């Protein structure tokens, strides 16, 4: 029963959706203020969601109807499932086992795959080009993201979130060594969330809305919710891995701290996306392999060296 509530309400789908909308609001509002605009009112993301849900759904005749309908739900499910393994109010997550970080990272890959499959099965030219770009981009940012996120775990000699938190509670100073990894993961996360400069798969001035071109009504609403949840989960992942302090505090305080940490990552993402022009797909791949991947390798080397010198 607790598990069911955990999955459905807190910290499951309902909480994540709500928190996702809050994060979207913070992101949009800050983006607007940085651009010297007013920005949307606080209820705008929710209003958008309700509007989309109540609108007519149009499915292209040529589209693969089952895939077309299944993908949005799958995207939300995968993104929400990942959140269950991330610690939020204590060192222990709702579910935990040895190696859960690998599962979280892989679950976070699934939404991107559903974007690809959804776009591909809608058989529109724009959607197909967007889908192909989606996959191309996935191969570019995924490796740096993996290496960046896994580096702190290497330092702690574990593949488990709870043990990671315990380790950094015992040695809080070691968090400093992961700065490069944090930067790399943040940039790679922008690629995963398809934010400028990596919003190539849905570049509106080139291919309309990329994978989502043919989506409308509640399926589009679900997809957008999936993106929001992905943002929360991604930010939570970064917060849990790179800012693992304060998890030993009382549950309420630790949870408030968690919210602040996630919003901090969202604010960083928002500032970053204000500053750049959209890259081209070839430039994006170049950038990821030329700068991001080596930087994450450097992080791994640093952690190996630190482990050898200080922890042995």
């Amino acid at each position, binding site marked *: 029963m607790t598990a069911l509530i955990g999955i459905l309400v807190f910290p499951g789908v309902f909480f994540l959706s709500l928190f996702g909308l809050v994060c979207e609001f913070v992101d949009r509002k800050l983006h607007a203020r940085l651009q010297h605009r007013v920005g949307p009112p606080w209820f705008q993301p929710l209003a958008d969601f309700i509007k989309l849900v109540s609108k007519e759904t149009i499915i292209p005749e040529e589209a693969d109807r089952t895939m077309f309908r299944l993908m949005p739900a799958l995207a939300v499910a995968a993104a929400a499932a990942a959140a269950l393994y991330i610690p939020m109010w204590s060192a222990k997550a709702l579910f935990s086992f040895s190696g859960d970080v690998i599962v979280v990272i892989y679950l976070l890959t699934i939404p991107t795959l559903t974007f690809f499959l959804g776009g591909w099965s809608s058989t529109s030219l724009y959607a*197909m080009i967007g889908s192909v770009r989606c996959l191309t981009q996935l191969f570019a940012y995924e490796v740096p993201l993996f290496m960046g996120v896994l580096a702190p775990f290497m330092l702690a000699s574990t593949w488990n979130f709870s043990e990671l938190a315990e380790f950094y509670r015992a040695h809080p100073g070691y968090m400093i060594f992961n700065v490069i990894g944090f930067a790399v993961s943040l940039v790679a996360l922008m690629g995963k969330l398809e934010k400028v400069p990596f*919003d190539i798969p849905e*570049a509106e*001035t*080139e291919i309309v809305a990329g994978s989502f071109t043919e989506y409308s009504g509640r399926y589009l609403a679900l997809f957008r919710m999936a993106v929001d949840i992905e943002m929360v989960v991604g930010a939570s992942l970064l917060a849990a891995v790179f800012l693992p302090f304060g998890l030993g505090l009382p549950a309420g305080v630790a949870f408030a701290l968690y919210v602040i940490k996630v919003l901090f990552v969202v604010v960083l993402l928002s500032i970053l996306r204000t500053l750049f022009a959209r890259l081209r797909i070839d430039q994006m791949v170049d950038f990821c392999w030329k700068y991001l991947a080596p930087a994450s390798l450097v992080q791994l080397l640093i952690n190996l060296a630190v482990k050898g010198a200080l922890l042995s």
Partner: protein
Amino acid sequence: MSKVTIPIGPQHPALKEPARFCLTLNGEKIYEIDLRLGYNHRGIEKACEERTYIQAMYLVERVCGICSHSHSTAFIQAVEEIAGLQLPRRGLYIRTLIAELERIHSHLLWLGVAGHEVGFDTLLMYAWRDRELVMDILADLTGNRVNYGINTIGGVRRDVTPRQIERVTKAMDTFEERTKYYVQVATEESTLIARLSNVGKLCYDDAMRLGAIGPTARACGLERDARKADPYGLYGELDFKVITDKHSDVYGRAVVRLLELMESYRIIRQLCKGMPEGPIAVKAPRKIPAGEALSRYEAPRGEDVHYVRGNGTDKPERVKIRAPTLANLQAVAKMLEDNYLADTTIVIAAIDPCFSCTDRAVLLKKSRRRNEEPVLWNSLRDYGIAWHRKQGLDFGDMNRRFGRMMERSSR
């Protein structure tokens, strides 16, 4: 991935006006381009023939929303030349002042649009925020933010007050500071440079051959500016430079436009300083004598050409408008070759296109026959040559010599 044909337009989020670019893609690279125009033909030239000169002027002003002053000035310059009107100095000053303010507003608009096309919305927001300043000045001077309605045959309709001149001069300081900042952003922000440089290359020879004009040509190092080449209005006595650039790509076009803004501020400063006293318009006759005139005008997008023929009544007999975008469209097809799909929109946007202004297709039909088939361009050309031969005029030899001359000069 096999070859895919993807339509950009007639409706597409990147195009603000209808035009169709059918791109055949080889992966992400463009392999072939098919360009279709004519989705927004409004019959303005014909409509002008049924209106008096004053009425036609307001119609011509609405050819384009951004360079409305350019079109109305180009039109009435031609009318004034036919009527032999001598404009009062103050009228000319005001007309030129509005023209340069319009250039500022158009170039800032372009900067924002270019930013948007490459996904740099922050640049769009800031450029358009600063553009509001010049829009407010234009509204203050003329009464409206677009379609200023300041021109009239024989001068301008509204005088400027000393307070307004002071406001314009003061605003120039702000603009200069902001433009310097945008030059810095355009030349230093690495993602922007990555998207702009080496995109939409057009070499000097191609620009010459395809007849590119305006900032598009000037970014290829081609010194083409009607303000210098064929000074009209006050431009003969103003001190300004024609900005050129050697980059020949979208980056060069951005730089040319930004530096042209700086020149515009200089021109406006000179105009505000030297504004003479006196009347702002002379009385124009209702009936314009018979005659014809061709008027060239350097609009923000390039050279705007208007041809007017009068027949002694109060209505023009023929009006022909060549909007600047038309001259640059051939160049766009060349620029797009072998580029990425992602760069299509910025390459198209780089000529600052205005498709609705451009669309004035004419379909000629052989009316005597039952089945009305359209007359093709080649047969029309043959007909024209034959007609002139009959009149005792043969341009064939001259044409050939001119062709050779062009070839030599482009080499």
